[in-house]
């Protein structure tokens, strides 16, 4: 059997979406630091504004540097297209605002990033969009929570903070049986470790800020459109399947078919909400994507070394990473994530909140901050920072013990990471 004639993943991480600049020969992606683009003629301008022809007209809507990143991420995920946004949060908002209307409902995993939980739980209800949160490990829980007004199913491929492994195929089936799309936030996995569209997801969202950018230098997000969902099947998605006055009665499914979602997200979402990515940030993030395969392989390798070390350390009460045999999704992860289930893990230190604080104060190489997915190793103790106002009981119901430390394993020499952590663990036990 012949092989499909596409470049392989590592090649596309470097090249997809770009050819050397035809006028200057520039090999690197130029930063098109411009707000706007000269029209060829009045007719050309009118055609661009009316979606008759494609091209750049104003950098809120599209920009050549950002377009390279968009096309590259679409290619790596196996989607039809992508829309980059100013942040990962803006990407989730763009997806929700493009698909849903007031009165609509979301079924979402309850183990998601706190910011995403806030957006769905507290903010979207102000605009008439409600969410039911369910256990991501139970596909039936998604099915039971679906209401007549549900329009979207949402989860993280690797959850937060317990690295719950989503059974993408099973949840996609639940969603599709109800005529609904499945959107996943795949920030922790990146397309190097998981390509959710191949497993049935319809939309993939990333905080590009994290491993895709990889160096902790720029905030960004993306919505990748899988292009396989039939938005016109039963009239549930009027933003995509009904005429839109915003462009003289265009119907996105009629005109663009598989690309309806990405076209509407750009033509309406970026035009009106304006959460676009800057060309300079796209450039920084592209530098990261170029080495994604190399970095992720090393992130995972280092993570396995750290898990081994923690496993043997007497100050550690438990470890939560899918590579560890005690993790409830160990089996599923070894099937879905043959190259590793990411580089974020959490563990418990004996001695509760105080020991957690002492651990954080004793780390030297690892950085104490609120981020994940940097090239450098990062730690945080939610009990004394992001979640400090919560009681021990509330923390427990959110799956966050007082003793929980979250770790984002970086690319330093694994010996140095392990030395730093194990010294801090010893310090945590001295009261």
């Amino acid at each position, binding site marked *: 059997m012949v092989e499909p004639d596409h470049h392989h993943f590592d090649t596309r991480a470097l090249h997809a979406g770009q050819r050397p600049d035809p006028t200057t020969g520039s090999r690197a992606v130029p930063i098109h630091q411009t707000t706007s683009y000269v029209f060829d003629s009045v007719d050309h301008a009118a055609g661009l504004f009316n979606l008759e022809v494609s091209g750049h007209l104003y950098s809120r809507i599209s920009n050549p540097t950002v377009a390279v990143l968009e096309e590259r991420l679409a290619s790596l995920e196996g989607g039809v297209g992508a829309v980059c946004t100013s942040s990962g949060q803006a990407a989730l908002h763009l997806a929700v605002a493009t698909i849903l209307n007031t009165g609509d409902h979301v079924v979402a995993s309850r183990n998601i990033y706190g910011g995403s939980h806030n957006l769905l739980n507290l903010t979207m209800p102000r605009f008439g969009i409600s969410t039911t949160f369910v256990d991501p490990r139970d596909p039936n829980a998604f099915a039971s929570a679906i209401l007549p007004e549900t329009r979207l199913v949402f989860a993280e491929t690797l959850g937060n903070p317990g690295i719950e492994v989503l059974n993408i195929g099973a949840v996609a089936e639940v969603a599709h049986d109800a005529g609904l799309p499945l959107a996943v936030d795949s920030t922790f996995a990146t397309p190097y470790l998981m390509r959710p569209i191949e497993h049935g997801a319809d939309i993939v969202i990333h905080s590009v800020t994290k491993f895709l950018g990889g160096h902790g230098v720029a905030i960004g997000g993306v919505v990748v459109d899988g292009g396989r969902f039939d938005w016109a099947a039963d009239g549930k998605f009027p933003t995509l399947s009904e005429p839109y006055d915003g462009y003289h009665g*265009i119907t996105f499914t009629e005109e663009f078919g*598989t690309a309806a979602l990405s076209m509407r997200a750009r033509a309406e979402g970026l035009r009106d909400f304006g959460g676009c990515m800057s060309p300079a940030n796209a450039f920084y993030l592209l530098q990261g994507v170029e080495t994604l395969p190399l970095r992720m392989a090393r992130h995972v390798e280092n993570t396995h070394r750290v898990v081994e070390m923690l496993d043997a350390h007497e100050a550690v009460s438990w470890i939560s990473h899918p590579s560890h045999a005690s993790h409830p999704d160990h089996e599923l992860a070894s099937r879905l994530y043959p190259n590793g289930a990411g580089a974020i893990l959490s563990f418990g230190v004996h001695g509760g909140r105080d020991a957690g604080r002492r651990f954080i104060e004793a780390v030297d190489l690892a950085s104490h901050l609120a981020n994940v997915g940097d090239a450098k190793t990062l730690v945080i103790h939610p009990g004394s920072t992001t979640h400090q106002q919560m009681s021990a009981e509330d923390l427990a119901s959110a799956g966050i013990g007082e003793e929980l430390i979250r770790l984002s394993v970086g690319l330093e020499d694994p010996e140095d990471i392990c030395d730093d952590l194990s010294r801090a663990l010893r310090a945590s036990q001295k009261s």
Partner: protein
Amino acid sequence: MRFEVDGRSVYAATGAVPIQRARAEELPLVLFVHGAGMDRTVWSQQTRWLAHHGARAVAVDLPGHGFSEGPALSSIAELANWIASTAEALGDPVHVVGHSMGAFIGLETAAQHTDTVASLVLMGLGAAMPVHPDLQAAADSDNPLAADLMAGWMHGPDQKFGLNPTPGMSMTGTSRAVIETSPKGVLANDLTMCANYEGAADAAASITCPTTLVLGRLDRMTPRRAAQPLVEALGHARVIELATAGHAPMMEEPNVVRATLADHLAACR
């Protein structure tokens, strides 16, 4: 837009401009016909533009494709009759713009229904369209590999890198998704029809209506030389050769194809 042909529902994109409109009869009616396993959306760079530039544009989903009711038809000759019925339903002679299998359908319709077809613009075609046995086998078993193979062969080398004319979109990704989501069995049926059609050169020899061919020099599915017998049989055709286009010029070189359509329709007036 939805309308009926031979008692079955047909879906078409009209660029969101109704074809029934003031002084419609003064505007040429242009029927866009897609290729194997594809649908109306392959013409999204032309339909809406043309609808706003002096024509009535109708990009149909062939029976059983896209949102049109099935069953899919099983020979180029049947599809040519269907195009004739469609033109009748729309009420006018039509300018047929066809891609790949759609180009075969255009040739056959113009040869068999001379009063129906006002002119032809054809792209991504050869005198014969043999199908790679692995592609046919994958399509026969509804294996998504078929879509992947076609998407890989369909576009010129530039599109392997990308830089899609539509910002943020992946051309190979879009082509793959269109083919992958076509109803079961449709691609296999289309490929078989293409491989079995032997009438292209004869049809071309009999055609007298104005004809423009748009040929990509980097077309790997219907290489440039495969179109030469048609260029010779047609004799009078205008030939536009694109140095860097592959099998799908309407996506790869949308500006050139729009300009070519405008010139072609102007010359038909």
